[in-house]
């Protein structure tokens, strides 16, 4: 029984890591542009597909695939801000929402056109597909260990960037007060583009990490986007730690429920929990109360 539960927890933390990275992406984009980027999940899928191409078509190592997909994510995010978010923002908040939802479909069908609509297997970073260790009888895929380690690495890197570097602080300054930022000489447009680049890089990074476990491509993006959003709201959209913990928690809850409930009941219960969390603690577990209003 204990082993069964632990097994589910490990599986939950693994998918939850992808939700956590998506949630962190929401946080970064929201903070920089005041927008929720609904296409975040499709960029997770795209990251996995780019890695797939690098690893299985160009026959490079999975590490090159990870670096390539993450870099491509940053570049695409930068472009995405320039040609989608920024022009849409000139027409108001509703235009931004519609534009990011529109991009969900462009990316979804774009992926199918280029890579086909069937999910593909992606090679794990080390060892053979599915290779696992068994501490105390719980099977943990080697890839899951990489997922946990690299999620932690990404989190620390983000923290260092935004809390320890002048560039990261300039990005924050541009977000909290664009007028003040321009007056000290910060290029606010570049700061926003860099923020979106970072968020999409996180998504692509996440897609590559969990690709060897979940397959890459197909229609998984919407579910990842929504569950990442649930994680961000439960943890607190304005708190990086809250986003990470919230994403992991949603993964664990989802897998625990799946251990006992029929699969049709899992997602409705996950969303019911979201509603409950919103009612009990609208600012999220780690959020500040005053951040809810704007």
């Amino acid at each position, binding site marked *: 029984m204990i082993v069964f539960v632990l097994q589910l927890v490990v599986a939950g933390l693994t998918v939850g890591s992808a939700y956590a990275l998506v949630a962190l992406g929401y946080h970064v984009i929201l903070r920089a542009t005041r927008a929720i980027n609904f296409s975040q999940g499709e960029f997770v899928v795209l990251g996995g597909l780019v890695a797939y191409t690098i690893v299985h078509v160009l026959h490079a190592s999975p590490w090159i695939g990870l670096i390539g997909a993450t870099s491509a994510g940053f570049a695409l995010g930068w472009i995405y801000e320039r040609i989608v978010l920024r022009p849409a923002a000139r027409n108001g908040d509703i235009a931004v929402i519609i534009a990011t939802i529109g991009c969900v479909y462009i990316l979804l069908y774009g992926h199918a056109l280029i890579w086909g609509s069937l999910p593909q297997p992606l090679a794990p970073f080390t060892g053979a597909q599915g290779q696992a260790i068994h501490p105390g009888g719980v099977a943990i895929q080697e890839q899951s260990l990489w997922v946990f380690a690299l999620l932690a690495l990404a989190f620390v890197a983000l923290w260092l960037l935004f809390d320890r570097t*002048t560039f990261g*602080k*300039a990005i*924050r*300054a541009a977000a*909290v*007060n664009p*007028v*003040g*930022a*321009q*007056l*000290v*000489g*910060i*290029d606010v447009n570049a700061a926003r583009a860099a923020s979106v680049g970072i968020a999409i890089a996180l998504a692509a990074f996440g897609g590559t990490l969990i690709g060897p476990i979940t397959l890459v491509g197909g229609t998984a993006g919407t579910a990842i986007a929504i569950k990442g959003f649930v994680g961000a709201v439960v943890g607190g959209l304005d708190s990086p730690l809250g986003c990470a913990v919230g994403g992991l928690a949603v993964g664990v809850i989802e897998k625990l429920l799946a251990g006992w409930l029929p699969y049709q009941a899992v997602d409705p219960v996950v969303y019911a929990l979201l509603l409950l969390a919103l009612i009990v603690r609208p600012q999220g577990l780690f959020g500040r109360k005053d951040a809810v209003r704007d």
Partner: protein
Amino acid sequence: MSAPLLEVRGLRAGYGELSVLRGVDLRVGAGEMVAVLGANGAGKTTLLRAISKVEAAPQAGSVVFDGVNLASLAPQRIVELGLSQIPEGRQLFGELSVDDNLRLGAYRRGRAEREESLRRAYALFPSLAARRANAAASLSGGEQQMLAIGRALMARPTLLMLDEPSTGLAPRVVEQIFGILAQLRSEGTGILLVEQNAFLALRYADRAYVMAEGGVALEGSARDLAADESVRRIYLGAALDEER
């Protein structure tokens, strides 16, 4: 006469399609303090915004700073050239610390210069040094104004523009701020000062412009304007009565 530090000619500027300034001419020399007076809505803030190219945009005319036409430059390049502004409402980075606010003031400067400027800013405002780790939003109004001035000075501007620095501050703090401005001027920094308090501005400034409805209605030496009948009647009446 040598070329002025800042030369504004026939500046039209505003917000989108809307023109607020309709042909402003104005000069500031190095080491000169120039005041801009005028009623609410005259366009004083818009003038500073259009010069910095933040929020308001120039539509016609020219702004030449230190021999460089600013027409094709982005706001960050203007700061880099040495033109800084302390805006209406201060526009601090509320969630960032005092230290971070100051450091970001030198965003366009090198690391060595930044550390040196930081020491100077804390020497100038010891009360900020005591709160260096506090969030800017947690400071009192006077401290926030000091932080706004300190942040602008971090860029080592050769021309400093201030939009109503005395608003909401205790007389003692206002005196301190104007003392600092006088000090900067004596070091050769040009100062363009927008001020509602005409009495205060004319006491410290060398020259002044009076704006009305997006244009310059009057200009002259601070002494002449302080003695001018219409200026006294419209802008100085209350202040002079208080003096008596």
